[in-house]
């Protein structure tokens, strides 16, 4: 009920076309991850845990389903009486509506939201990264540095640096001296995480200028940050240590799920820094007399009669007798019938894998069954897409 210091703007992206079949019916931020979560649970829970209680979610695609998932925001304790989570699709204006032309344009088109909240700082986040982070500490650093902008960075292996936006910083105080988008010969291995804190007025000015520039692609990394640097603004890096993963592709989404099955998982879901999610009311899962479950994560409401190994199963999944699921991700309420075999696959929600059917991919060519599909026994299939 007190004035908002910092508003978070989550760029929940477009259709997520690199996730292909998984985003046919839902927006990318709503894609299930880690046995019970959706991707957007991570930035939202980080916000809740960091004490940020006003969040704008910028999405172009299927805002309704996202709205339905987020509800009032109560799962994240963001249901304040004056509103906590705001879904912000591009809406019709005097001159019709435009798609968001870039990350910066998305924020620009919602400056009226920021004006309404009237914060001192704007935290810009991306909606397709898995990590846990205390934004309050980053904000404290931003304030201590009297910065205009602070950019979250993490160290990547030197040989991977050319794939990232790289920050060259003053080693003493972390002030950013140069930014290179995907440099061939990186001078540093500090990569941008796509997490920015801006002073609100400062951001406002640059967004408005950028909006009038027809040559700009209205992107933070390509346009806004370089322009700010050119103007010698006080820009600092904030180093993040810990697990951080972009899950924008099928392979990386599968890999991030598998990462959770390591002996020492990359981060603990049981620590005080909880990841919240909007869950249906379901009972503990049941393992039958012939069940065999190893090296796996299972969620509530599932009933397992078969074998599961090295897999992540979401809520309400049914695995029939004699069925075998290995190295796979099975999303909510999918039914795997008796003696079906699934390996190296992502099976989306509400699918039926018929008795005796085979769904098999391999590392580097994960099989995908899109939402709501039924895979018949004779339809045994390998590789990137089953339908």
């Amino acid at each position, binding site marked *: 009920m007190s004035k908002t210091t910092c508003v978070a703007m989550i760029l929940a992206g477009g259709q997520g076309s690199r996730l292909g079949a998984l985003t046919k019916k839902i927006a990318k931020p709503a894609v299930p991850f*880690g*046995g*019970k979560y959706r991707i957007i649970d991570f930035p939202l829970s980080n916000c809740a845990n960091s004490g940020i209680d006003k969040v704008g979610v910028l999405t172009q695609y299927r805002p309704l389903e996202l709205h339905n998932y987020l509800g009032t925001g*109560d*799962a994240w304790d963001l249901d304040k009486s004056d509103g906590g989570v705001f879904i912000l699709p591009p809406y019709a204006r005097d001159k019709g509506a435009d798609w968001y032309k870039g990350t910066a344009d998305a924020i620009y088109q919602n400056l009226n939201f920021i004006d309404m909240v009237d914060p001192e700082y704007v935290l810009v986040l991306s909606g397709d990264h898995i990590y846990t982070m205390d934004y309050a500490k980053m904000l404290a650093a931003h304030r201590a540095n009297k910065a205009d902008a602070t950019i979250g960075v993490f160290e990547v292996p030197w040989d991977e640096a050319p794939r990232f936006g790289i920050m060259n910083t003053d080693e003493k105080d972390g002030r950013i001296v140069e930014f290179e988008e995907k440099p061939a010969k990186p001078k540093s291995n500090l990569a941008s995480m796509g997490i920015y804190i801006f002073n609100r007025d400062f951001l406002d000015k640059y967004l408005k200028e950028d909006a009038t520039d027809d040559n700009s692609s209205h992107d933070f990394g390509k346009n806004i940050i370089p322009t700010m640097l050119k103007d010698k603004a006080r820009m600092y890096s904030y180093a993040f240590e810990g697990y951080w993963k972009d899950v924008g592709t099928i392979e990386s989404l599968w890999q991030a799920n598998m990462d959770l099955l390591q*002996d020492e*998982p990359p981060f603990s*879901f*049981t620590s005080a820094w*909880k*990841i*919240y*999610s909007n*869950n*249906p*009311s*379901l*009972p*503990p*899962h*049941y*393992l*039958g*007399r*012939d*069940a*065999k*479950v*190893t*090296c*796996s*994560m*299972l*969620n*509530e*409401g599932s*009933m397992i009669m078969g074998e*599961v190994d090295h897999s*992540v*199963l979401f809520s309400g999944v049914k695995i029939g007798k004699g069925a075998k699921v290995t190295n796979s991700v099975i999303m909510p309420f999918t039914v795997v019938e008796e003696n079906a075999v699934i390996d190296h696959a992502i099976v989306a929600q509400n699918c039926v894998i018929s008795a005796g059917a085979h769904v098999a991919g391999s590392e580097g060519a994960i099989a995908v069954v899109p939402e709501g599909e039924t895979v018949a026994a004779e339809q045994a299939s390998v590789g990137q897409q089953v339908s």
Partner: protein
Amino acid sequence: MGNVMGIIRLDGANSMLKELCEHRPVAALPIAGRYRILDFAVSSLVNSGIGHVGVLVSKKARPVFDHLRSGKDWDLARHRDGLAYLPNDGENGNTSALAGLYQNIDFVMRSSAEYVFLVQADTVYNIDFRHVLLFHQNTGADITMVYCKAREDLPGEAASMQVAENGKVTDIAKRMTSTKGSNDFMGIFLMRKDTLVKLVTSTFERGGNSMLVDGIIRHMDEFSIYGYEHKGFSTRINSTMAYFNANKSILNPDIWNELFMSEHPIHTKTKDAAPVQYKNTAKVTNSLIGNGCEIYGEVEDSILFRGVRVAEGVKIKDCIIMEQCQIEQYAMLRDVICDKNVVVSEDQWLKGAENYPLIIAKSTVI
């Protein structure tokens, strides 16, 4: 059902529940790996469209406050109606539910409800109360009492009802045992609000202590009482064995499905526990495993609540292990009920009997 309210009683027959109810009312006893017993009553009310629920606060109420909190998890945190706590100051040392009702009778009277479900939250079920209301309206009963056929012979306080073919209740008797096939009262009354007000005030003001005995059994001829039979799964938790058996019943996939997977889910306090982690040495069969568990060992015919850690080499069979217990390496447990936060150290062996489970009290380290 905007014209119906629910009132939850937290009291129950807990003399045969021993250590399990030393620090909590029966209603707050954890069950089925994730729930408390009152979840069944509260969820059934809410799922039947009843959005006004009063809770008669009893002694040892902290676990109930902790669990229900604002009522939000049942969509009962509302500006109008919603969840209301009804305190019982125990004037003259009388802390009975009837005294609590009497003290809060103005709350009942002020409500805009026409009908009241008075529910003792000590029984496991998933009922659509709308059917009970329809039955009540069709029979024109003054009072409807919901009962079920007892599934087995078991000791434990029970009220058995004689029900005529047309549904009329002709006799009610309280016994310390339940016989297979008898019509056991499930602790659910339905009546008009004014009937309840009259019943409570006239019984309490004449020195009565029990709604059922002093209010109804002693005045059977003054009311037209009908019995509604609930044909689904139902079991009253009135003894350790009843508790032990009820949990194990839920290992039957049919009962698990009936109670939890219908279009009317049982709601409970959300805890945001992570999915269960099964490690490479895990071996779990015929068991319910609550979220947040981490399992290296073997579990059979058991129920694990949230956040239990089962270390390597452990063998658990026919057990109920409540929240946050830790079973350390090579421990073996059979026919044991561990209350919350119990630690069973390395190499310990614990064994109760099939008809006499060993109960380990809350937060014990063994």
